[in-house]
């Protein structure tokens, strides 16, 4: 993320780009290119298509440079272009692949999915109505700072890959890429509330998958 204080650098960078400075362009490609490709890959499934998206996005950005007014940061602007192009490609891809709607707002209105199944809680006649039937088990602790085990990574990555598009995009940008909520809302054109709904569903499911994995191992 470009820090708020980097606007002078950004202005200088834009001037260089408009003047056709290849070093400035290369620096930008190396800084944001990998992230742009990862974002493209959370919309589309094939890496060849993702590469096409990235290429089209940069061309679009270069052509639109003169129209860039600096209201959003350069990073947000670039990722918005990627998201728009990737969305178009994903819709095209969806004609041949099972792919649910990319209408993120309508995904939010999908029926409520509880974070955990109701049987994890006591019924209305229990000692503590709607309280835990039994407390969640402690997880096997993961080494701090060290590399995650390959299996843990697979559990997380596969769960994210299986999510509906909106949840997948939001958790990828927020928790894998480490963006803040405002950037995600701006790039995906979501309201803050809807962004939070999708994030909540996604995190709840990843937690449930980790619970399965990190407590079954222990038994």
């Amino acid at each position: 993320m470009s820090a708020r204080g980097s606007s002078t650098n950004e202005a200088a960078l834009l001037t260089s780009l408009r003047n056709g400075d290849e070093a400035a362009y290369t620096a930008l490609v190396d800084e944001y290119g990998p992230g742009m490709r990862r974002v493209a890959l959370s919309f589309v499934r094939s890496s060849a298509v993702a590469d096409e998206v990235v290429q089209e996005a940069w061309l679009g950005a270069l052509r639109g440079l003169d129209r860039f007014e600096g209201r959003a940061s350069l990073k947000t602007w670039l990722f918005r272009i990627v998201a728009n192009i990737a969305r178009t490609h994903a819709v095209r891809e969806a004609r041949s692949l099972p792919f649910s709607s990319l209408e993120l707002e309508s995904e939010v209105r999908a029926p409520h999915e509880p974070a955990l199944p109701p049987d994890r809680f006591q019924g209305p006649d229990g000692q503590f109505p709607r309280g835990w039937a039994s407390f969640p088990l402690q997880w096997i602790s993961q080494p701090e700072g060290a590399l995650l085990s390959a299996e843990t990574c697979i559990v997380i990555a596969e769960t994210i890959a299986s999510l509906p598009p909106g949840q997948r995009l939001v958790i990828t940008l927020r928790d894998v890429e480490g963006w803040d909520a405002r950037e995600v809302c701006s790039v995906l054109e979501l309201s803050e509330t809807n962004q939070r709904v999708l994030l909540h569903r996604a995190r709840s499911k990843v937690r449930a998958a980790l619970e399965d994995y990190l407590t079954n191992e222990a038994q």
Partner: protein
Amino acid sequence: MSELSCQEIIEVVTDYLEDAMPPEERQRFEHHLSYCPGCVTYVEQIRETIELTGRIPREEALPAALREGLLTQFRTWRRG
């Protein structure tokens, strides 16, 4: 002030962590955590989920052919 149930807590945990709760509900949430070890564990596990998700490996470099293609595209654009 009515008490939140555990089943409600796990549905508002994201609002809590995102600091998107009115002060009064935040108070009810924290009050619940003060006596419920199950929900304390749950909230900790959501935090751990976020932390672990942030540590899965990401592809950090562009494929060489794509990077080369982007540079070629730039030179063409500059000439145009």
